[in-house]
């Protein structure tokens, strides 16, 4: 096995174990911390693909910002198994069935692709570097890029508006 393969299997095992622990942890704070470890191993996979920018942005945005907000909410609400109302048995069965069938569809879709995918390395090893990524984003995909940034801006304005103290002037 080459070093890349060893790292790949190590990161894969780590990601899957972390993902399972997210589901099986009793304590929601532990779930969030396991989810962070999943993001780390996925960042490792990005680095193996030489997509350093994606790897680090994944860490900054998901592990550094979104998960911190999750932790905020969960820590302040202090949820645990005793105080939280449990979902009914039928709901749990339905959830596992639908989740399981989604996984089945995904596995079936990905089963035959192994021969057809042309690896990123074969195209160009530098394709994931920030220079190429920026050029692609601002030339080929400039319209979707700008539209999504407008979407983020509107979400931001909406959040500020919701967070403001409600006065009569806004309603009327």
């Amino acid at each position, binding site marked *: 096995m080459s070093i890349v393969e060893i790292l790949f299997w190590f990161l894969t095992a780590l990601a899957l174990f972390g993902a399972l622990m997210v589901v099986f942890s009793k304590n929601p704070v532990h779930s969030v911390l396991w989810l962070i470890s999943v993001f780390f191993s996925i960042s490792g996979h990005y680095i193996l693909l030489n997509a350093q920018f994606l790897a680090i942005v994944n*860490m900054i945005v998901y592990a550094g910002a979104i998960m911190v907000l999750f932790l905020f909410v969960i*820590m302040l609400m202090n949820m645990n198994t005793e105080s939280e109302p449990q979902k009914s048995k039928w709901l749990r069965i339905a959830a596992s069935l639908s989740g399981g069938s989604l996984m089945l569809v995904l596995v079936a879709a990905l089963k035959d692709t192994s021969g057809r995918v042309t690896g990123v390395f074969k195209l160009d090893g530098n394709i994931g570097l920030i220079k190429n990524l920026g050029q692609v984003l601002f030339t080929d995909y400039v319209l979707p890029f700008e539209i999504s940034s407008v979407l983020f801006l509107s979400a931001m304005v909406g959040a500020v508006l919701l967070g403001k103290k409600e006065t009569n002037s806004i309603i009327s």
Partner: protein
Amino acid sequence: MTILQIDFFYFLEKLLLIGGVITFSLIIAMYTTYAERKVAAVLQDRLGPNRAGPFGLLQPLADGLKLFFKEEIIPLTSNKLLFVIGPALAMITAMLTSAVIPWGSSVNIFGRNVSLQIADVNIGILYVFGVVSLGVYGIMIGGWASNNKFSLIAAVRGASQIISYELAMGLSLIALLMMTGSLSLKTIVEQQMNGAWGGFLGWNVLYQPLGFLIFLICAFAECNRTPFDLPEAENELNFGYHQEYSSMKLGFYLFAEYINMFISSAIVATLFFGGYDIPFVNETTLAHTLGGNVVALLGVAALLAKISFFLFFFMWVRWTIPRFRYDQLMDLGWKKLIPLALANMLITAIVILWLNK
């Protein structure tokens, strides 16, 4: 020697470098605590520590030993695993950033060209931000695992402060990145070295004074230093997220702050003050007379001198300016620094476009 497609001498070289940098950071952080007391003493017209060893130089050792010998208390109702992980995370994230800082150019040892930087990744600055954004976890986990509402509130206070100032910090750097066109810290330093007057006129602080100011203020907030040390405001807010900690775990939290100070000083020096550039000296001509290795070591000394100045600045501010109120802190971060950083970014972009036309 090559096994598994790895050059093992390269591996050894990097391992030694990592060990060296970490040991060095720890020693510097240790003596920063000593320097802090001495600077405080000078500013307050006192003597400062002078009992342990000559000039009190063994004081940091005595402090460390004291912390190790104190009784270790883990509260019964705390989450024990996370309670231990918290300070460890604080230390780890404090040390991680040192990997991308170029401590010097390269030295020649036994015919091998050894770069004095652990990893020259082409996303160096983003890596720094990634690690900084992870620094929140040490605070959050420690505060929550203590199972004490004061710790939890202090942890939330500290985490929201760090997240708020991260934004302004990132925005202040975008203007700098537009000028340099590279995210690699080594490239940024090399560009600064090419300036006139032996590199001095290439220093980014001359072109980005506002960006530097915003970055410095944010660095103070990220390190939880006065005037922004609200996460650990002991007199008015009942101490901080490390309220339940004792012994060396408390020591780790306090020590991580000094390592953070050292690393942020190194980053400020690298980004804005030429890194290992010796001002008014042309390194390539000097290398012909003195030899490359000597010049590289002089460069490291120059970087350390710049870092020492910023460490002193951190202490100077701490013992001069009183603490902000929490709403003032948030006001400064969100309503003043972020718009300023945005304006700085816009002006820089316009000037760059105008000059390139």
